[in-house]
């Protein structure tokens, strides 16, 4: 029998794969730099926890509820920010993330600053594996379809895509909606695993952590997100042996990874020389991290 500690890490890896690959759809494939992904996760986590606690939904329905509520907010944030690009979109998503955190901090029903406790522990390894497979399958099908090609066209050159007859507005909202849905699903798994949620744990830093997973794995590659999520979840745990130097090594590994493979472990040619969209996105991300 596998130890509860490893089981917990495997479950966390699975949940983070869902978060990273859903963010990859928004940032990696559609080219919309989002640093508010943790907000969708927290909306999903709270919505599903409340559905279980207050409405007595069965687990599956709660998860679905978390995903749908998060998707609703994904679409909501998608609409006003469509006109924004790059930096401006990043800042808008950042602002959205903070708004969500502050709202949860002040709402009575979410337990305010104290958070929610006593959520039943329904998340099992089986549920996580099923969710990961469903997420990866759906995202893979989307990317390999006409929709996926439209998203990639938007990333490569929005104006060109529009002139080819792609409804960029529609597809960008779609990317935000689908990405947020899976983030919310992951949030539901998260809250039903740890049995406790609190608004401060889904702040700006969590969003950056998810973005790190996507960039490290490779923007625009689903399998990259799987590897990125697994690596960035497992490495800090493996480094526990080095006690005080842990954070130092973790940082060093990130820096060295980016130095050796700036396109990410599984990254394809988005960041090959001369691709203006890729260069632009990468330079923006670099600036964000340097801050």
């Amino acid at each position, binding site marked *: 029998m596998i130890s509860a*500690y*490893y089981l917990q890490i495997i479950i*966390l890896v699975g949940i983070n794969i869902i978060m990273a690959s859903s963010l990859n759809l928004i940032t990696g494939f559609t080219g919309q730099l989002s640093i508010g992904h943790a907000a969708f996760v927290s909306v999903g986590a709270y919505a599903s926890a409340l559905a279980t606690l207050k409405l007595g939904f069965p687990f599956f329905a709660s998860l679905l509820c978390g995903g749908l509520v998060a998707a609703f907010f994904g679409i909501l944030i998608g609409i006003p920010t469509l006109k924004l690009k790059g930096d401006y979109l990043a800042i808008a998503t950042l602002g959205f993330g903070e708004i969500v955190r502050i709202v949860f*901090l002040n709402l009575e029903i979410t337990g305010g600053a104290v958070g929610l406790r006593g959520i039943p522990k329904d998340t099992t390894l089986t549920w996580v594996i099923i969710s990961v497979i469903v997420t990866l399958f759906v995202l893979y099908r989307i990317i390999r379809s006409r929709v996926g090609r439209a998203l990639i066209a938007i990333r490569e050159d929005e104006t060109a895509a529009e002139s080819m007859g792609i409804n960029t507005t529609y597809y960008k909202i779609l990317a935000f909606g689908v990405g947020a849905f899976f983030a919310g699903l992951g949030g539901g798994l998260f809250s039903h695993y740890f049995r406790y949620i*609190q608004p401060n744990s889904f702040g700006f830093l969590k969003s950056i952590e998810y973005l790190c997973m996507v960039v490290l794995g490779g923007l625009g590659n689903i399998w990259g997100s799987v590897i990125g999520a697994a690596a960035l979840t497992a490495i800090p*745990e493996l480094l526990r042996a080095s006690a005080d130097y842990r954070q130092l090594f973790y940082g060093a590994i990130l820096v060295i990874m980016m130095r050796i493979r700036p396109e990410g472990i599984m990254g394809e040619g988005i960041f090959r020389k001369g691709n203006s969209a890729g260069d632009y996105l990468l330079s923006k991300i670099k600036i964000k991290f340097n801050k």
Partner: protein
Amino acid sequence: MNKKIISLLSILFLLSVLVASGCGGNDQPSGPASDPGPASEGEEAPESTVVKIGMVGPLSGGAATYGQSVRNGVEIAVNEANENNEIEGVVLELFAEDSEGDWSKAANAFSKLAEQDKVNVIVGGVLSSESEAGGPIIMSAQIPTISPSSTATGLTLGNPYLFRNCLSDEVQASQLAEYAVTELGLSKFAILYTNNDYGVALKNAFEETAGSLAEVLAVEAFMDNDENFKPQLTSIQQLNPEAIFIAGYYTEAAKIAQQAKEQGLDVQLLGADGFYSPVLIEIGADAVEGAIFTAGFHSGDESPAVQNFVNNYRELFNEEPDMFAAQAYDAARIVIEAIKSKGTAPEQIREGIAETENFPGITGNTSIDEEGDTIKDVLILKVENGAFDRIR
């Protein structure tokens, strides 16, 4: 070519660093505690049982000072017990794990201590959210855990393995309100609270007690890291309270005190254990003079036990011990006493902790009630001539 060399070098560097840390890392968790010194120096064959004490807290990140203080406090208690051979045939070993102040990572740390390191008992978590997340884990692993500083309301309820050695926010705030009304003769209060679990719990309890004994005129919120409190202070000033209860931490409290003084708002400042830090006086200077607050520990206390701890702490870590360190030291002492009286198995330690009664700690006489909560006196301190003075 050049690029290749750089990548190679960086990989080599990383590997060497990892190898180096691996060596250091292996004895790191055992750290100074497992220093074979006392065990092997003894004449008898070192046939002692090793009892593993885990510790979970933020050793890095924004809350790192709290976590490090707790680790230091536990370390002193463990070292003392080992050096004095306090428990016959038992060597204590400390396993400190970092939570980064993130409760999901604290959950990993709890899980690792319980499942991988097979610790007998845990001192932690430090932040309330860490203990909330760790609670279910240590309950199913049946590892007794005593938190030195998680003050959240009802934390230990329904979890026979979770204890704490700190006063809940309620107890502090309601006792302070009582003291302010009966001893200080104040009757008109305003409350400024930081909007997190700590501030909210203090605010609720103070508002309830002060509201029933006297009058609460205004309740205003602020956020951690806020700089400007003038809007809240202006609206409070118009109501003319006699005292302001600041439910928050020392940095904000000092700034509030200064801005209140600038506005000519001359009131009695009240606070809770979030005030207890030299930084309060450093930033607040004469604006915090006369402030009265509750605390779990007073390093100026003249009893030998306290002075012994303070001196040891200064010597080892070159800084003043704070409340976190003192409560952690006491928590570890309670664990050691439990091992002495009951035995080394987790279940025995749990029984021992649960039966703690009138334990003479450096943070006051401590008993554990049926719910795993602490019963101890609330100290009340006052800022006088730039130093903390105990007034009750």
